[in-house]
């Protein structure tokens, strides 16, 4: 194991390689299965990044779809309308242009996150929820009225650059980022802010800064997820990023158990696949979906997947061969 990579980063690199491999073999897969798989990945990115804000830092945001929209529109404009100007810079290589567009989309969303967060993070609980909800609606209305991006008709003919590698690569990076950010002495501060803001301040934590970091990082990944979404569906319109979309992501976080890494990932997978499976029921789809949510919340109010044992999964796995190599401490 190279000394400059520690265990968690090794897992990240492995995940990126796996995403690459999956892409390499993806032409054998049915295109419907592919698009559902990518939908799952995008939803994991959205749910994990919202989990950082809502779950770990305890700030109830309902504006995630708004940040997603900012990222989606920004990246779609970069790969569409501005592609002619950008292509000479990247020598016409899509595998350079697309990540550039995604990252810029994420950055613009992060800036939006900062702009919304700065005034509104003084508010708590329901009040913050309402302000972020309002922000999401404002974003939607802005895009509806900007003719450059198609207004209410939306943007179409977005190139289909999203593939398994980009989607699952982003998923891996998002999950790693949220995990790594939380698993440090600095990161425990997010949880402290969620638990008790007054005593967090009294212990010397700048709670405003923590909330801003969570908000900006969360918005960044929501923006990237938006970019992936746009280049998967080839079409975006403002009403696709409305209040309902935000709620959908919030439901994933709540169902997964606020502030749980694995649970939220699992619930993102479950809910995405579930909506696809329920398509056959036509008009009854949302009824069944809602009923299932109610049943799940009654049965597992603490979250879908709360590990029932004392030690983390890793503790039990590391005794076995393929994991033993990872468990070894770096020799440096």
């Amino acid at each position, binding site marked *: 194991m190279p000394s400059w990579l*520690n265990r*968690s*980063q090794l897992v990240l690199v492995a995940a990126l390689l796996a995403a690459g491999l999956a892409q390499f073999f993806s032409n054998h897969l049915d295109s419907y299965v592919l698009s559902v798989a990518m939908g799952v990945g995008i939803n994991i990115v959205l749910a994990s990044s919202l989990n950082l804000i809502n779950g770990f830092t305890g700030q109830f945001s309902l504006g995630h779809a708004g940040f997603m929209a900012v990222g989606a529109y920004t990246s779609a404009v970069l790969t569409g309308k501005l592609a002619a100007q950008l292509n000479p810079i990247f020598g016409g290589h899509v595998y350079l242009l697309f990540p550039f567009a995604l990252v810029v989309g994420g950055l613009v969303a992060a800036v939006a996150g900062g702009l919304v967060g700065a005034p509104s993070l003084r508010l708590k609980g329901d009040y913050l929820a309402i302000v972020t909800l309002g922000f999401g609606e404002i974003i939607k209305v802005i895009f509806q009225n900007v003719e450059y991006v198609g207004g209410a008709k939306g943007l179409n003919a977005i190139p289909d650059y999203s593939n398994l590698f980009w989607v699952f690569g982003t998923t891996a990076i998002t999950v790693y*980022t949220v995990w*790594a*950010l939380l*698993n*440090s*002495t*600095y*990161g*425990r*501060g997010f*949880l*402290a802010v*969620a*638990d*008790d803001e*007054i*005593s*967090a*301040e*009294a*212990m*010397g*934590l*700048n*709670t405003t800064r923590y909330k801003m*970091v969570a908000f900006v*990082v969360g918005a960044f990944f929501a923006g990237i997820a938006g970019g992936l979404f746009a280049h998967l569906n080839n079409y975006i319109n403002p009403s696709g990023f409305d209040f309902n979309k935000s709620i959908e992501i919030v439901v994933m976080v709540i169902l997964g158990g606020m502030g749980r890494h694995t649970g939220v990932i699992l619930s993102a997978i479950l809910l995405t696949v579930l909506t696809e499976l329920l398509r056959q029921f036509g008009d009854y789809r949302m009824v069944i979906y809602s009923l299932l949510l109610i049943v799940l919340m009654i049965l597992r109010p603490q979250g879908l997947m709360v590990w029932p044992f004392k030690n983390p999964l890793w503790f039990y796995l590391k005794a076995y061969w393929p994991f033993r190599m990872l468990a070894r401490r770096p020799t*440096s």
Partner: protein
Amino acid sequence: MSATGLQLNKVTIRFGGLTAVSEVSATVRPGELAGLIGPNGAGKTTVFNLITGVYSPTEGAIEFAGRAITGLRPFEITARGIARTFQNIRLFGSLTVFDNVRVAFHLHLRQGPGQSLSRGPTFHHEERELTERTRELLEIFKLDRVRDEPARSLPYGDQRRLEIVRALATQPELLLLDEPAAGMNPAEKVELMKLIQFIQERYKLAILLVEHDMKVVMGICQRIHVLEYGRKIAEGTPAQVRENPAVIAAYLGYDPENGPTK
């Protein structure tokens, strides 16, 4: 800390028409164990909230170590070296005992979000060092056996102790304890008095203590400030305060069961 310690100069705070604290002046010298007493509603906790920046005084100024701290935010005041505990325990309930203390090292961290992501050698070095220091603190205060329990699952006395340990982890020069003996039985109170004296000696701290229990206050405090209806009515050694007629009238004289503690 410079020789000045904590100084309150005619601090007043009004909430609408109510003057909760009125022109209170007081000094806590470096290394001193001072007490702040007064009947219920006298404004003791409000004084704490003023010192720690939860409230800003309407009038007057607060100085610590020769610098004004009036109007600073709570975390900035903690950074200047004033840590506190709360009357109604405010631990990070869902965090483990270990993490509660670890988080409080925040002010002395070299890492930030960037290092949490890159996880380089300096990051690991710091994490190991903090783990060691946290373990040490927990051991001194006999909380090492529950280090992986969530803080909210601890028994009451341990929670109080953990709050003090957490405050110590910020490496303060002045420690404010808000009714640390509340809800404790007599044996626990004796234990607590020893603990407070131990902390003061070991960490060379000044301590300001709000407490209702006269045995505790009279037993350990070197100087006592007395509040009544937001005004300071007396100051002095335990012996002086005990003899002070204003204090007896305001406070001890009204205690129907024990009478004046003498």
